[in-house]
Each structure stands twice: as structure tokens, then as C-alpha cells.
């Protein structure tokens, strides 16, 4: 009886592991792209376009806060392409030696906005009004790892309200989480990109746009990561993003297409 059981266990173990083994061995033409989470919708569409043009390549997206993504790549994650929501993160990766020479280029720009839940009745004519007591919780990305959080902090600094709203701040792990909190009414207001607000038009409304002078320019760079096992595919993906078609998709989602050949 126990012998039968042992045989059964061994067989089921291997039949569970085998398909995984085969999957891992997979087509060597997979492309892994680490991208700032604000690029989610636009890049997923570009990814599909890429796959339709390159039938035996699958594009896998690893989305998150740019800062986290940099840490992953520096930690040895097998990433082929990296796109961040700020120049700072790409600089960090570059100075650590993880960017393939001459593949880095800027491909989009964005604007920083303040959003509130659609049902909110609070009036906020200016950023300074965030001091108001009716506004109890403000969500923003964690400046340590989220570019949108850094831009938000810079904007608050610009309007000189940082100290006064300090206790109202709810820090999140990425910008889409801010969007979610505002959408669900967990917070009274949040700082996201205008492109994020577009994704949730029915649930949130843009109340203010941060003037360009209040924060560092919101520019998205893209590059091929050193150590990629698929340099050719990585390069052609970057080319697609900066091409007319890629730029068109980006602008459909609210980004400012600014691809400049570098």
C-alpha cells in the first residue's frame, strides 16, 4: 500500500514539474520589459503590436515604481528593456553600468495633476488649499521609489505647504495605487499623472494641474539593459516605442510624444 502511494506521489510530482520545466525552457525569443506603472496601458498595446509583427516573440511586462525596478535590475533581474517615469532613475541605472551604450532615448512626457474622487464636494482652487482641514488624507507615491511621489513632493515644496500637510500624507508603493485610493474614496485627494486620471475617468476628476515650474520635467527615458539575452529584439522594441506608430499610441493615452533620436 505504501509502495503504491510512493509511486503515485513520484508520478504526480514529475507531472506537475515537467510542464513547468518545459515552459521555462521556452522559446528563447521572450522579451522582458520593466516599465514604470504609469506606462501600463500604453505599453501593453505597444506590446501587442510588437507581437503581431514578431510572431515568435512574447513581450512580458514587469510594471512597478521606477525606483523598485532599478533595484531589481541592479540585483540581477533578467530584464531586456527598461523605461522609467523620470530621468533620475535611468541615470542611476546608467551610472551603475547597466545601460547598453547609445540605446538610451527619451520617448514621452507627462503632466502632474491633483485628483479627487468624482463625488467629492471639496473645492481646491489652488495647491495651497490642501492645508484646509476638510482635506484629511492626501495620497502620493513614496518619494524614495516613486517618481510621481518625487514630483508631488517638489510641487508641495514649491507651494510651501510641505510641513503643513505632512501629517495628511499617505505614501503608496506606486502611482497607480494613489489612483486606486482616490477612486475608492480612501483619501480626499491624490497626486498622479494626467495619463493615470484618464484611465479612471468615471471615478476621479482632475482638479489642478501642477505648473511645469513646480517640479522637475516629467520625461520618460527608455534603454536596453546590459546583459540582455536578446539584444536584437530589445533594440527593435525600443525602435517601435520611438517610431511614429508607438508615439501615436502613447499620445492616445495622454502622453506627450517627444521621441528624439539620440
Amino acid at each position, binding site marked *: 500500500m505504501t509502495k503504491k502511494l510512493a509511486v503515485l506521489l513520484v508520478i504526480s510530482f514529475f507531472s506537475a514539474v515537467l510542464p513547468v520545466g518545459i515552459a521555462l525552457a521556452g522559446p528563447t525569443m521572450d522579451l522582458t520589459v520593466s516599465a514604470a506603472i504609469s506606462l501600463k496601458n500604453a505599453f501593453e498595446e505597444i506590446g501587442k503590436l510588437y507581437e503581431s509583427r514578431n510572431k515568435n516573440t512574447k513581450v512580458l511586462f514587469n510594471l512597478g*515604481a521606477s*525606483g*523598485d525596478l*532599478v*533595484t531589481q535590475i*541592479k540585483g540581477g533581474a533578467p530584464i531586456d528593456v527598461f523605461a522609467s517615469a523620470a530621468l533620475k532613475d535611468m541615470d542611476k541605472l546608467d551610472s551603475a553600468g547597466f545601460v547598453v551604450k547609445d540605446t538610451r532615448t527619451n520617448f514621452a512626457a507627462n503632466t502632474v495633476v491633483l485628483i479627487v474622487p468624482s463625488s467629492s464636494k471639496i473645492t481646491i482652487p489652488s495647491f495651497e488649499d490642501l492645508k484646509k482641514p476638510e482635506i484629511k*488624507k492626501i495620497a502620493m507615491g*513614496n518619494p*524614495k*521609489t516613486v517618481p510621481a511621489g518625487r514630483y508631488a513632493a517638489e510641487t508641495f515644496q514649491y507651494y510651501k505647504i510641505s510641513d503643513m500637510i505632512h501629517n495628511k*500624507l*499617505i*505614501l*503608496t*508603493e506606486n502611482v497607480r495605487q494613489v489612483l486606486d485610493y482616490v477612486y*475608492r*474614496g*480612501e483619501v480626499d485627494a491624490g497626486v498622479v499623472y494626467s495619463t493615470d486620471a484618464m484611465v479612471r475617468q468615471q471615478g476621479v476628476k482632475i482638479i489642478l494641474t501642477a505648473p511645469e515650474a513646480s517640479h522637475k520635467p516629467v520625461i520618460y527615458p527608455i534603454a536596453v539593459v546590459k546583459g540582455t539575452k536578446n539584444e536584437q529584439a530589445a533594440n527593435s522594441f525600443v525602435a517601435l516605442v520611438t517610431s511614429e506608430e508607438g508615439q501615436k499610441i502613447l499620445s492616445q493615452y495622454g502622453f506627450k510624444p517627444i521621441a528624439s533620436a539620440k
Partner: protein
Amino acid sequence: MDDSLLFSLKLSVQVATVATVLVVMVGLSAAYLLSRKNFPGKELLDILLTLPLVLPPTVTGYYLIVLFGRNGLLGRYLYAWTGWSIMFTWYAAVLASFVVALPLMVKTARAAIESVDENLIRASYTLGHSEYRTALKVILPLARKGIVAGTILSFARAMGEFGATLMIAGNIPGRTNTMPLAIYSAAGSGDRSQAAIMVMVFTLFSGFFLYVASKLSRRVL
């Protein structure tokens, strides 16, 4: 050790302690009910109480948001009456730890209670003691090994809680960033040395806790 590290450690211990106290109170009661009573919906209660054990903490966290978020099924009433939401407070961290640690307590306590010789309980009744007194003077003392083990497990689990806590308490420095969350932030932002120090402190603390716990339990048992 800097202020933020101290704060995170203190917060973790505080959250875990409060959560464990709640777990013991609720868990013992539930374990007693499940092991000694029959009632409609008993199976369902058992499953509900075991669920956080098999669900990933993020799923548990999601359910907690659905229930206790500002617009949640229960949270909306709390907000309407008091203007207060549990989200992003250390109470939320306690709630998350409580929910994930509860199954551990219920399972171990229930097994311990069920192992008490039924004749001893019957004897207590024939000697004139109510069900409550019997539970206090006969069942609990005889089940204490399992109860102590359950308490230690619960505290350990509460200290290490991350996923659900991140979702409902958030990772707010100086307010809700327990040790596991603080380590996650430090590691994520590339602050290796800070992360390393915190990891070491947390490990030492955990080791110390286990040592004290085993010493104390040997005395109690």
C-alpha cells in the same frame, strides 16, 4: 540604531502584542465553540476561520479593504457615524495581524481542548460545576500546552505580517511602517545598509523572543 528603526521595532511589537491579545480572546472562544458545541453554520465558521491560513496575505488584505475601507461594506457605516476610517492607521495593522494569526490560535487551541478527556468534564458537571466553571478550572488548565503554543505562534505570525498590512495600513513612515514594511522600503529604495541593520535587529529580537517564550512556557507547563 536611528529613530526610525526604533520606531518600526516599537510599532511592530506594539501591533503584535495587541493583535495577540485579541487573538487569544477571540481564538479561545472560537476554539471552545468549535470543539464542544454543535450549531447551524458550524462548518462554515470553521472554514471562514481557516481561510486566512490558506489564502495569500494579499488576498486577505483585499477582503479587508472590501470590508473596512472607507467605502467598505462595514467601513462606510463607521465613517458615516464617526468620520473615521481604519485605513492607514496602526489599528489597521493590528486588524491585519489579528486576521492572519487567528487561524493558528484556533487550530492549536481546538486540538488541545479536544484532547481533554471527556470523562473529566462529565465528572466536573456531576460535581455541580457549570459549563463555564468547568471550562475555566478543568478544560483550560489541561489544554494549556496547546494554548501557549498557539499564543507564541500567533505573536510570531503577527510580528512578521506584511502583505495584508501593506494593503490596509499602508507603509507610512512614522505611522504604520512596521519592521517588515520598513525593511521592504529600505531594500526597495536600494538602501542596503539600512535594510541590513534592520534585518539583523529583527532577527535578534525574534530569536530573543523565542528564547524567552520557551523559558516561560516551560515554567507554565
